């Protein structure tokens, strides 16, 4: 009995010592707890995407967008912001590994990512457990916000919006009635292709063929021949640029020389044009145009002077990566509490502040988040490859 009393007293004293350390006690009233940043420490935010591997042009470009966002907003109430860049190689497995690593770091407060839908899908529950707020620049699978996660938000426009617009453009502007769908079997590609097909059929068109391919291969002549048998006027492909390029360049040999290749926002970029060469001519892709503004001009100049490349050469998404982080940093400014020498970041308040973002001026437009976490400001433009360049397609 006596030992138990002694134990309880010791415990109470120990707790008092822990919380009362330094004299000025800070009591965190947030439901999800607070991140404590001690004097001299940094506030950690992370960009997560494929910085190596097949899709590295996306990851490298977007991490630069995130770096510029930090350069424009270098501190939260005097505490320097530190950008952590983690590599997923575009795979869900690696995405989960990176998410677990960051969730274990108590100073990580916000995530600019993940980049691809598959990797984001596995990461959401991990960050939800760790109470870390996310803003994805480019995960577009509609179901991600249907999960109802309080930590997940995105500035990307969804595949549902893209599929709807693409179906309407193909049906009305290009006057095409028979299409075939192809995809790479990934969360993004398959979802987008199927949704486009549904919208296209709703408009009155016919989907004459469907085929899934294995991404990363260099010979798609057999699946293309299978598609050619149904004689589509156009092939809609959901997937990424390297596979798009192989498909576009092998269509001619498979009996589809008169069909149009219609890619998505994963197709857009210089790699498709470089790899497909002449076969790229006349192919379509989707692009999210950025309205001209002083801030965007400055962003492009800074990008060029810091990295040597033109903004938009590697991928179109660096402004989105910038905006996602800018929204997060803005919310951090609103909720961070200084107490003594330390900075405290209430995690629930931060997630709420991100979700309540309203009329935030960013590069892709004016960002307002819906109560499900959809924060996209951008509109969609369909591009056609002409003379080795992407130019806006006819009738827009």
């Amino acid at each position, binding site marked *: 009995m006596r030992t138990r009393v002694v134990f309880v007293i010791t415990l109470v004293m120990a707790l008092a010592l822990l919380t009362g350390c330094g004299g000025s006690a800070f009591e965190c009233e947030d439901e999800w707890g607070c991140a404590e940043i001690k004097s001299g420490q940094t506030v950690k935010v992370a960009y997560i995407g494929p910085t*190596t*591997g*097949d899709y*590295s*042009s996306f990851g490298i470009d977007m991490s630069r967008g995130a770096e510029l966002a930090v350069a424009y907003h270098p501190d939260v109430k005097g505490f320097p912001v530190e950008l952590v860049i983690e590599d997923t190689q575009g795979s869900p497995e690696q995405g989960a590994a990176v998410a677990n690593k960051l969730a274990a770091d108590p100073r990580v407060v916000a995530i600019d990512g993940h980049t691809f839908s598959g990797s984001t899908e596995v990461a959401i529950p991990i960050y939800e457990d760790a109470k870390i707020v996310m803003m994805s620049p480019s995960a577009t699978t509609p179901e991600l916000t249907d999960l109802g996660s309080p930590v997940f938000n995105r500035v990307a426009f969804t595949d549902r919006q893209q599929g709807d617009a693409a179906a309407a453009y193909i049906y009305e502007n290009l006057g095409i009635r028979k299409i075939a769908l192809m995809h790479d*079997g990934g969360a993004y590609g398959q979802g987008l292709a199927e949704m486009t097909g549904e919208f296209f059929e709703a408009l009155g068109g016919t989907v004459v063929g*469907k*085929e*899934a*391919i*294995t991404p*990363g*291969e*260099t*010979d*798609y*002549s*057999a*699946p293309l*021949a*299978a598609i*050619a*048998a149904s004689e589509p006027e156009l092939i809609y492909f959901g997937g990424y640029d*390297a596979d798009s*390029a*192989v498909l576009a*360049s*092998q269509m*001619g*040999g*498979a*009996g589809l*020389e008169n069909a149009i290749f219609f890619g998505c926002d994963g197709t857009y970029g210089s*790699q498709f044009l*470089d*790899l497909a*060469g002449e*076969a790229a001519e006349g192919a379509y892709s989707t692009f999210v145009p950025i309205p001209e503004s002083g801030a965007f001009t400055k962003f492009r100049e800074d990008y060029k002077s810091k990295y040597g490349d033109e903004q938009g050469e590697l991928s179109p998404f660096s402004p989105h990566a910038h905006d996602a982080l800018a929204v997060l940093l803005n919310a951090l400014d609103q909720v961070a509490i200084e107490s003594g020498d330390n900075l405290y970041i209430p995690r629930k308040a931060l997630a709420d502040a991100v979700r309540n973002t309203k009329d935030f001026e960013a590069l892709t437009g004016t960002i307002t988040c819906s109560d499900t976490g959809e924060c996209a400001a951008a509109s969609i433009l369909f591009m056609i490859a002409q003379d080795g360049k992407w130019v806006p397609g006819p009738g827009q």
Partner: protein
Amino acid sequence: MDRSEAQSRPKRYIDFGRWIRLGIGVIVVGFLLFRLWNVLWIERAYGLDTWTRFAVSGIILGSVYAVVALGYTLVYGILFMINFAHGDVMMLGAFAGYFTLEALKSIGFLNRSVGTSVLSVIIAFSVGMLFSMLIAVLLERIAYRPLRTAPRLVPLISAIGSSLFLQNMAQLAFGAERHTYANPDMIQRNSGWMVMIQGKEVLITYTGVLTLVISFLLMVGLFLLVQKTKMGKAMRAVAQDKETAALMGIDVDQVISNTFAISGLLAGAAGVMWGLHMGILYHYVGFIPGMKAFTAAVLGGIGNIPGAMLGGLTLGILEAVGPAILGIPFQLKDVLAFSILVLVLIFRPTGILGEVLSKERA
């Protein structure tokens, strides 16, 4: 082996394994025939032109698999070791050919005239083959020779390590991005002869025909080399019994080195053919074809040269035609290929044509 085991067993045990195998066989064959009938006469999803396209695509792919499979089979025949880095040797050969063609293009030699175009392709093949040969010989010297007397699992692990090393080395050296092969104008991809089948044009590409012809020449050449020359005789002797061959005055190390050199030459040629026909190249391009070629070698009977050719062609055609017959997405063609491998291993563990060398030895 199987029979002697069965005989030594007491009679009262029923051989369940055989009945299960028979059952699986009947079900699989029955299902395939049903699907074939269904696709050809009931669904009629594809016309003859489409089947021709599938077959052409499969034969070309299969002939590349066959050439790569020859390299696996040669090395296995002599060392009883599976050289998992062989696919990556092919990838390096493809890169050597790529840089050669780029260099010839930049000095304006590639398309100057028909003669220079032909010469460029020959140069690209030579450089690719010699480079792959060099890599294969070095690989043997560095990664396999010191392990010659080690247990059989050790060189296998060394081979897997070499494969990863070569892939990552290529990624570091050439970047992770994809490269497009610069074909001479006269054999551009997507150009070729048009064949009319049921009123529809089917394209037979120049690069595809080139691939077929070169594969065929390489197979015949290799067969003659192994069967008719002194070097081939030495290789066959080493394959049968290393110690006795050494006692007869054959330099075993030299013969093994030669074998790797030949497998490297074949891999290099396969790599350049792959590049010219498929057009897109990156550091990972050798791994899956390497696995497929290994499958092909096992399918035909590993250690057996005609078996590797047959296995390669079978696998290529199965991959192109199989998903269409089964009515499954083409994404599942790898599942199909490896299922075939499992089935063959259940019914004929020594492959379609059997393991000729081991039979001779027995």
